[in-house]
């Protein structure tokens, strides 16, 4: 779980949907310690513009420590990344953060993974880990339309029950991914990653039903290492918390760092 800074070649980069890329980066031993929900910070571009690293969830790690991220080219940094060819080098900081907590033991209770858009990739790693434990998760995914659907093959490969929703009905269920979630019979545990609005809806669904739920949060990051306090997120103080370096806050709430205590938080904790 100790992060490393390393430079590694791009082994492969493929455009898998409009503006979405699957990037395979060369192996590093540190990546073999990664757990689902953790992320890496990539230095994009060779100069100081852009300045900051970009955070990306780990989609999966191969046995040799090579790993993949799936990302949407949307701004300055990801556009640069998308232009790189196999053979080019990328500097990586990771694995970082606190990922999903896996069930202690195999269970036959329905475990549900809820993904929205480009929030889907870390759920691949999670589904693989669950599958390795002998768990067949229910995976429900939401996308804007058929062209944006990603990762299907990975979930099928690990035997997940897969259902997909699209906003315009061009693929799968016509509607919201949260509607698919409601159709699952008595989920025992929910894991979610996606846009803030979706996470809030999933958390609300879980919290009102007292279903254990973990959500992966997103904030702009500078350091990714817990020092800059740029990525904090408001959480409830539920129990008298053990003093944490950055656990300051107000009445009933405290800041937690998305890059350290997160990105994955207990849905009952997060103040949306």
């Amino acid at each position, binding site marked *: 779980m*100790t*992060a*490393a*800074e390393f430079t590694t070649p791009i082994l492969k980069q493929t455009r898998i949907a409009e503006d979405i890329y699957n990037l395979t980066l060369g192996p590093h031993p540190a990546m073999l310690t990664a757990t689902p929900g953790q992320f890496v910070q990539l*230095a994009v571009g060779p*100069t*100081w*513009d*852009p*300045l*900051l*690293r970009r955070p990306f969830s780990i989609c999966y790690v191969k046995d040799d420590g090579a790993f993949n991220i799936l990302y949407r080219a949307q701004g300055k940094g990801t556009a640069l990344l998308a232009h790189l060819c196999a053979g080019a080098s990328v*500097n990586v*900081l990771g694995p970082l953060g606190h990922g999903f907590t896996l069930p202690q033991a195999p269970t036959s209770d329905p475990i549900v993974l809820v993904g929205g858009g480009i929030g889907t990739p870390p759920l691949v790693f999670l589904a693989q880990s669950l599958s390795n434990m002998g768990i067949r998760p229910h995976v429900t995914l939401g996308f804007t339309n058929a062209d944006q659907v990603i990762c299907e093959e990975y979930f099928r490969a690990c035997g997940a029950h897969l259902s997909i929703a699209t906003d315009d009905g061009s693929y799968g269920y016509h509607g919201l991914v949260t509607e698919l979630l409601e159709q699952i019979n008595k989920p025992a545990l929910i894991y979610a990653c996606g846009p803030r609005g979706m996470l809030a809806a999933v958390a609300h669904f879980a919290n009102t039903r007292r279903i254990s739920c973990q959500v992966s949060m997103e*904030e*702009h*990051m*500078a*350091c*990714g*290492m*817990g*020092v*800059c*306090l*740029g*990525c*904090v*997120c*408001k959480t409830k103080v539920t129990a008298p918390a053990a*003093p944490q*370096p*950055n*656990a*300051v*806050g*107000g009445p009933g709430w405290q*800041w937690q760092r998305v890059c*350290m205590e997160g990105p994955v938080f207990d849905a009952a904790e997060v103040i949306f």
Partner: protein
Amino acid sequence: MSTTQDHETNLLVTQIAGIALDNPVMVASGTFGYGREYATLMDIDRLGAIMVKGVSVTPWTGNPMPRIVETPAGMLNAIGLQNPGVAYFCREALPWLRQRKPAVIVNVIGKTVEEYAEVATRLDQEQGIAALEVNISCPNVKEGGIAFGTDPVAAAEVVAAVKASTSLPVIPKLSPNVTDITAMARAVVDAGASAVSLVNTFLGMAIDVRKKRPALANVMGGLSGPAIRPLAVRMVWQVYEAVQVPIIGMGGITCVEDALEFIMAGAGAVAVGTATFRHPTTALQVCAGLAAYCKAEGVTINELVGVAH
């Protein structure tokens, strides 16, 4: 008998405000936490000093989110000096820090002159602190939010109060958001500063064009990173000609050449800030680079301070 390694390292030995330093390379306050976070990634014992994140009397919650935004070759931050307070610092962070080799310089913050003095008094009881860096860029609550850092009289008052509350060397950290940085430097030196740190961040802002709103919740924030380096070097140059105390130079340092710019402009030591976010080992690389440079040029680091004047 001294080895080559020792010899090279000796070229970097220096002293700032009476603090003996193995080398003049520090990490800047707020960009290295309390030192522990990066310790797994690198050998922090090779740093000259660690300037810890600003410490206040009581815990500060800082500003709402969003707190950071990237700009060309720079970043704006409006963290708002979130920190768990001096008691927590002394209990949880300092014991670990004082066992490390780098000098520990504690960045002191407050909303009134009294708060600064109180933090200094509390820290004076502790072992293992080399100096206090007084961050005068905090809003002066009593004076209605004007920063101590832009008024020479208010700055001198803070520095004098801290000086009176501690036996440690006092190093005011100057704000660059002033017409005349030398007036600020003179004021704090007259008030008892043993050295000065410069610069803190430049007041800036960005608009989120899609939202038609300021990108930071706090509206304005501090600009740091390579973008500000030419401005920071200029201020070090000016202050070097204005006062006699040593200068800890910072602002956009990313590599040994950048550090040399500051040293040649007059900085006796340098600190790496934002660049650490990009490459955590930047400060160590600067340090190794300085050792190699001094060896190749056959000079000690002290002989380079201010040579460009």
